[in-house]
C-alpha cells in the first residue's frame, strides 16, 4: 500500500532521513519508533506530502509525484500530533472538514458528505457531542474527534502522529482500541509514530526502529523491542518481560539494577 525506497529528507542543512526503505501492506498496522529526533514524525510528514525529499514514494501502486493534491488526500489522511483547532468550531463542522478532498473546489458539501460525517461520528460514539465545541472536549474525546475527521476523509491509509502522547493510560488504550477496530472493520492501513514502546508492541503488527534518520530494525515487536536494541539506540536500561507473547518494556533505575 505504501512503499518508500531510498527516501532522504533534508531540513535546512540537516539530513533528517537517510535512504529509508519502508513498505506497509494493505490493512497492516505499522508503528514507527525511535528516540527523540530520530526522524519519526518527518517520515510520517513525508508520506503525507508535507515535506519534500529525494527517493521514491508509491501509494497504492502509483508514484505520488503523479498524484494530484486532492487525489493524494483521498488516499492518505493524517491525524497530527498537535492539531490546530479553530476557536468556536463545533464537532460536526470540524469533522466535515475531512470531506474537503471530496468536495469540488470552491463548492460546499452535499447530503453524501453529511452522511459520511454521520457515519464517522456514529462509529466513534461522538453523535451526542455533535454540537459541542471541539475546544471544550477532554483530551480523549478530542482525539476521537480527530480520528473521526480522518475517517470522514474516507482515505484507506491513516497516518497518526503520536496519537496517545497527551492521554492517560486508560484513554491511551481506548484510542488505540478504536483505531484497531476501525482498521479491522474498514480494512484501513495504519501507520503511527509512538513513544510508548509497550503500547506500540501491543497494537502494531510490525515496528520500524529509526535512529539518526536510518531504519535500524524492522520486524515484529519481539524482534525490535529487545534489551540490546533499547540500550544501543535509546541509551535506556530496560528489562523486557513477555506477556502473552507481546514484549512489555520495563524501565530500570540504576541503583535498583545493582541491588538485583
Amino acid at each position, binding site marked *: 500500500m505504501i512503499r518508500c525506497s531510498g527516501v532522504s529528507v533534508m531540513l535546512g542543512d540537516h539530513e533528517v532521513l537517510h535512504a529509508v526503505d519502508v513498505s506497509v501492506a494493505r490493512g497492516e498496522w505499522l508503528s514507527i519508533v525511535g528516540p527523540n529526533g530520530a526522524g519519526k514524525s518527518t517520515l510520517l510528514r513525508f508520506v503525507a*506530502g508535507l515535506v519534500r525529499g529525494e527517493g521514491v514514494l508509491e501509494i497504492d501502486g502509483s508514484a505520488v509525484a503523479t498524484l494530484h493534491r486532492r487525489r493524494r488526500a483521498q488516499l492518505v489522511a493524517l491525524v497530527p500530533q498537535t*492539531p490546530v483547532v479553530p476557536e468556536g468550531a463545533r464537532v460536526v463542522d470540524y469533522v466535515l472538514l475531512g470531506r474537503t478532498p471530496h468536495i469540488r473546489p470552491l463548492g460546499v458539501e452535499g447530503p453524501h458528505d453529511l452522511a459520511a460525517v454521520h457515519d464517522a461520528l456514529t462509529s466513534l460514539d461522538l453523535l451526542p457531542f455533535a454540537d459541542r465545541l471541539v475546544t471544550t472536549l477532554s483530551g480523549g474525546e478530542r482525539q476521537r474527534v480527530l480520528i473521526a475527521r480522518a475517517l470522514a476523509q474516507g482515505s484507506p491509509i491513516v497516518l497518526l502522529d503520536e496519537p496517545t502522547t497527551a492521554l492517560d493510560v486508560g484513554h491511551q488504550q481506548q484510542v488505540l482500541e478504536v483505531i484497531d477496530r476501525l482498521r479491522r472493520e474498514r480494512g484501513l492501513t495504519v501507520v503511527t509514530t509512538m513513544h510508548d514502546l509497550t503500547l506500540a508492541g501491543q497494537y502494531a503488527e510490525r515496528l520500524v526502529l529509526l535512529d539518526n534518520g536510518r531504519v535500524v530494525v524492522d520486524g515484529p515487536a519481539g524482534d525490535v523491542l529487545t534489551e540490546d536494541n533499547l540500550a544501543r539506540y535509546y541509551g535506556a536500561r530496560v528489562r523486557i518481560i513477555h506477556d502473552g507473547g507481546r514484549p512489555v518494556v520495563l524501565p530500570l533505575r540504576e541503583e535498583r539494577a545493582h541491588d538485583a
Partner: protein
Amino acid sequence: MSTTVAGTDGEVVVRAEKLRVRWIVVGVAAVLAAGVAGLVIGPAGLSTPQVVRDLLGLHSSLDAQQVAIVEQLRLPRVVLGLLVGGTLSLSGASYQGVFRNPLADPYLLGAAAGAGLGVTVVIVGAADGASTPTVAPIAAFVGALAAVGLAYVLGTSGGGRASTASLILAGVAVASFLTAVQTYVQQRNQDTIRQVYSWILGRLSTAGWHDVLLLLPYAVVTWTILLAHRRVLDVLAVGDDEATTLGINARRSRLIVIVAASLGTAAAVAVSGLIAFVGIIVPHTVRLLVGRSHRVVLPLSLLFGGAFLCLADLLARTLSSPAEIPIGVITAFFGAPFFVLVLRSSRRMGMTT
C-alpha cells in the same frame, strides 16, 4: 469515556454551520432600512412613503427639486455607502480569516496606507476638479499590493515561514512608513492639500454616479472571489499543513484571497478615503452574534457592513448640518462603543452557542 444514550434522541440530524435564510432576510432588511433612511432623512423634509413610491416608479407627490435631491444627490451617495461599507467589511473579514488573526484588517497590514499613498500621488499629479480620477483605484491597488507584499517580505525575512504575528508587526511598520511618505507628498503640494486632506478623513462624495460606477467593477470582482472562497477559508483555519493534507493548495488560496481583499480595499479607499474600523467591527459583531464559519461571516459582513456605513454617512451629514463631519470620525466614534457593547454582552452569554 461517555456512554451513548441510544434510542432516546432518535435520529440525530447532522447539520453543517451555514448561512440560514432568516439571517439573509435580516441582512437584506438592514440594507433596505439603512438605504431608505439615508434617502428620506435630511433638510429637504421628505416622508418615507413619498420616497418609496418615487423609487418604485409610482406617482409620488414630490416636486421636481425633491426628486432631484432623492435621485441625483442622495441615491448615489446611499449606493456608494453600501458598496464601500460592504467591500471594506468583507475584505476585513477575509484578512482576519486568511491571517488567522482577529486584529488583521486593511489598516494593520499597510494595504490602506499603500492605497492612500497611491491615491495621494494621483490627486497631486492630476490637480483638477473634485471628482475621483479614474486611475485612482488602479494606483490604490498598486499601492496596496506593494504594501502587503512589502509586509510579507519583511515578515518572512527572519527566515522560514511568516508567523501571523511577525506579519502583522511588519504590516504596522510598513503602514507607518507609507503614511509618513504620504504625509510628506501631501505637505509638499500646497495647492492640493485641502483636497487630499478631506479625502484622507474619508467622505462619500456627492458627485453623482461617477464614484459608484468607478468602484462597482472592482467591488463585484472582489465580492465574487472572496465569497467563492468562504469554505476554503474555513479549511485554512486549521493551518497550512492540515489544509494541505486535506487537498487544498494553501499557499495559492491564501494569495488569491489576499490579492482580492487588497483589490477591494484599494478601490474603496480610492473613492471614499480612509474609513477606519468598518473592517474590524462588522465582521466581529457578526461572529459574536451569528457564528464563526466564513460561510456565515463573509456574506453577512457584506450586508451589515453596507448598512452600517450607510447609517454612519447619514449621521455624518445630519449631525451638524449643514456642515458635514468626516465619515471616518463617525465610524470610529460610534463604532467603538457599539463594539465594546457587543463584546461585553456576548461574553456574558458565554459565547458558546
